[in-house]
């Protein structure tokens, strides 16, 4: 098992549901081959530095995972066939220093996903409270 990171750019023309489905399919391709996904980081739609296949924008998604090195070529072959993917970048984290950096990146990616999820329900809860007060008055 070796640590890897995959950045995937999904087509911007898909709807939000379709992008979620295609990203799930991408993640399944990794997990079905015995890969363990540590975290994912959705960077969202952003402007590309240069047009790819006449697309000015793209949906960025980063997956951190560990998998047997022999499976990578098959995953990349599958990614090339997938028409939803504009571009993918696979990066290997091999040396001790790189693995330490990988762990840091995973921690970093986990933190922002946990905090907004906690903040979001609170923000929703606050609004009905205000409404209730207004109604009471």
């Amino acid at each position: 098992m070796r640590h890897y990171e995959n950045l995937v750019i999904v087509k911007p023309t898909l709807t939000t549901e379709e992008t979620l489905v295609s990203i799930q399919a991408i993640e399944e391709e990794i997990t079905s081959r015995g890969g363990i996904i540590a975290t994912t980081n959705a960077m969202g739609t952003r402007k590309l530095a240069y047009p790819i296949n006449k697309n000015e924008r793209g949906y960025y998604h980063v997956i951190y995972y560990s998998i047997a090195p022999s499976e990578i070529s098959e995953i990349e072959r599958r990614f090339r066939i997938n028409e939803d993917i504009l571009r993918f970048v696979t990066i290997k984290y091999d040396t001790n220093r790189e693995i330490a950096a990988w762990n840091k990146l995973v921690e970093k990616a986990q933190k922002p996903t946990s905090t907004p999820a906690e903040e979001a329900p609170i923000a929703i809860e606050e609004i009905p409270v205000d409404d209730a007060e207004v109604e009471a008055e």
Partner: protein
Amino acid sequence: MSEKRKYKKRFCKYCESKVDFMDYKEVGALRFSLSERYKIMPRRLTGNCKRHQDMITIVIKRARAAALVPYTVTRTTVVTAPFENLR
């Protein structure tokens, strides 16, 4: 020696801050080693050490592949895509 240097010879900025690993997704950090036209700045101008220059070239090339940083900037593309990508 009478010729003026365009840039002052400096010590390696990355050695000073003890950078061990660079992430290609943090585009703002790459800006120091990129020229206005997104070329990789040479070591003689930035003062980077060999080790960190090797690291940054790899990282910049990865960022280019991921469409985070442009490969080339011409007159026409400058107008449509100014520095807003590097934040």
